[in-house]
């Protein structure tokens, strides 16, 4: 590389570093304000956050980065906070299955049949499932994601192959989403769709959360698990309670709010 090219590359590199340093300073300032707000929420000084309306929150998912998921103390604290807030049904997910293994010792203790039935979960579900202070908790891992879908696809196809072998007609089957949903339930990868997903990790990323259960879930990034805050969770749940989904239908214009931060009409 010629000297001018090297100098140009160095200048570009320096400018790039300056831009990112500036963003880091900006993020630090935003973090300070955010932490202050979380502290005010925790201490009950911000009135609007005092009463959480969780009627629309039937099922909450927590996605954790697998390295951070090894911090079981933090996970238990998080579950304790959520229980205090009145969250009834939680799904814990990490791609490598650390949470499944960590909470497995508790799995054989209390299998709450009633809760399982009330959520219409198939009897053959193989997820870790146990109760924690009036809260039902499921544990999922990456094997419940794409691999789960592949297993369900295999079951679906086998059913039709067997049907053809036994002379039940050679018509090309038309698989539907309902067929897949039933197959997923049969292989133990069914289950309700979370209304809200809180992501704990360095970046906002769903890390392979089961696709069939992520279609219309609100996803919020909470930052690293080690710096989780009670006030941040309250804020997230409050923001969720303010949202509205129309699932592709048309709303009357009178309900629209032109402020993008409080968008009400959507996809």
């Amino acid at each position, binding site marked *: 590389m010629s000297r001018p090219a090297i100098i140009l590359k160095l200048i570009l590199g320096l400018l790039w570093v300056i831009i990112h340093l500036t963003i880091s300073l900006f993020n630090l300032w935003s973090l300070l304000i955010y932490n202050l707000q979380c502290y005010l929420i925790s201490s009950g000084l911000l009135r609007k956050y005092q009463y959480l309306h969780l009627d629309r929150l039937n099922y909450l998912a927590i996605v954790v980065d697998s390295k951070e998921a090894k911090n079981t103390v933090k996970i238990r604290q998080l579950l304790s906070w959520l229980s205090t807030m009145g969250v009834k049904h939680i799904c814990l997910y990490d791609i490598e299955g650390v949470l499944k293994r960590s909470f497995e010792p508790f799995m054989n203790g209390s299998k709450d049949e009633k809760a399982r039935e009330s959520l219409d979960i198939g009897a053959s579900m193989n997820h870790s499932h146990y109760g924690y202070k009036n809260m039902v908790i499921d544990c999922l891992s990456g094997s419940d994601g794409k691999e789960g879908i592949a297993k369900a696809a295999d079951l679906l196809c086998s059913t039709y*192959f067997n049907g053809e072998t036994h002379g039940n007609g050679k018509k090309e089957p038309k698989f539907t989403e309902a067929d897949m949903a039933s197959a997923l339930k049969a292989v133990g990868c069914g289950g309700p769709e979370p209304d809200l997903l809180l992501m704990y990790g360095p970046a906002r990323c769903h890390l392979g959360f089961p696709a069939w259960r992520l279609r219309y879930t609100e996803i919020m990034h909470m930052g690293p698990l080690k710096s989780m805050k009670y006030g941040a969770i309250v804020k997230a749940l409050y923001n969720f309670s303010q949202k509205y989904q129309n699932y*592709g239908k048309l709303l009357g214009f009178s309900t629209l709010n032109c402020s993008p931060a409080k968008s009400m009409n959507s996809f």
Partner: protein
Amino acid sequence: MEGTLTSCSPAVNPNIEKPEDMVKTGVLARFQNFLRKCLIAVISYGPMPNHIAFIMDGNRRYAKCRSIQQGAGHRVGFFALIANLLYCYEMGVKYMTVYAFSIDNFKRDPKEVQSLMQLMEEKINELLEKQSVIDKLNCKVNFWGNLELLCEPVRLAAQKLMASTAGNTGPVLSVCMPYNSTSEIVNAVSEVYAERREMLQREHDGDCNGQAVNNGVHPEISVADLDRHMYSAGCPDPDIVIRTSGETRLSNFLLWQTTFSHLQNPDALWPDFSFRHLVWSVLQYQRAYPYLEQNRNLAKKQL
């Protein structure tokens, strides 16, 4: 709004009447182009995304906020799509995917659906023209989705555009319409089933000819089998998924492909999503890149 668009490319510039305006716009546009190129050169020092996916949300809100007709909001949204395609091209982003129409959107008011279909047909036909931006960029256009659900004129126009750009080697624009991730997965399962059935049929015929055959049991369907039959086969997974208008859900978009994608939800409405928003988005991606790349490599090793 028009001003920011006209500065990006002559292809989207409307005709200018007064010569002094042309000179002013020409000089201003050239200066803006120069600044843009410098900024791109700086941010390209870091890791750049290869594939960006957009959920183009906010066209109706844009129309409402500016007291214009709803259809006009979608038209401005189309201009924003072309502008962002050009920006992505300048940044070296090879793949761009957009969520143009969800299967769920058929539930909307029939008049709105019809006007959207008419707009799509009109715009696809415009892109088919020789001097269109698609032609200039040598862009390959894909349509991902259940095209059978579209009315015939739109379907034919889409198939024509795909066929005419199939051999192009420039940037790849994938338009998801009408699309659902779950529908895509079901379609992939159907195709894998058809493939296996054909394989079994060939083996059965082989058996009839006295050749050795297995006992008619098909091998288990794997994730790789489904990957091969997704609409996105041959296209890398998105590095960034941007949903405009501040909404935080994916609405059944690329759920299979976004395991390690950086999910972003800027507050800007889609028609307002401009170069500075895209730069900010890439900068955020660069900050998350080490973590995302580490996870991707780990997942590949485990395979």
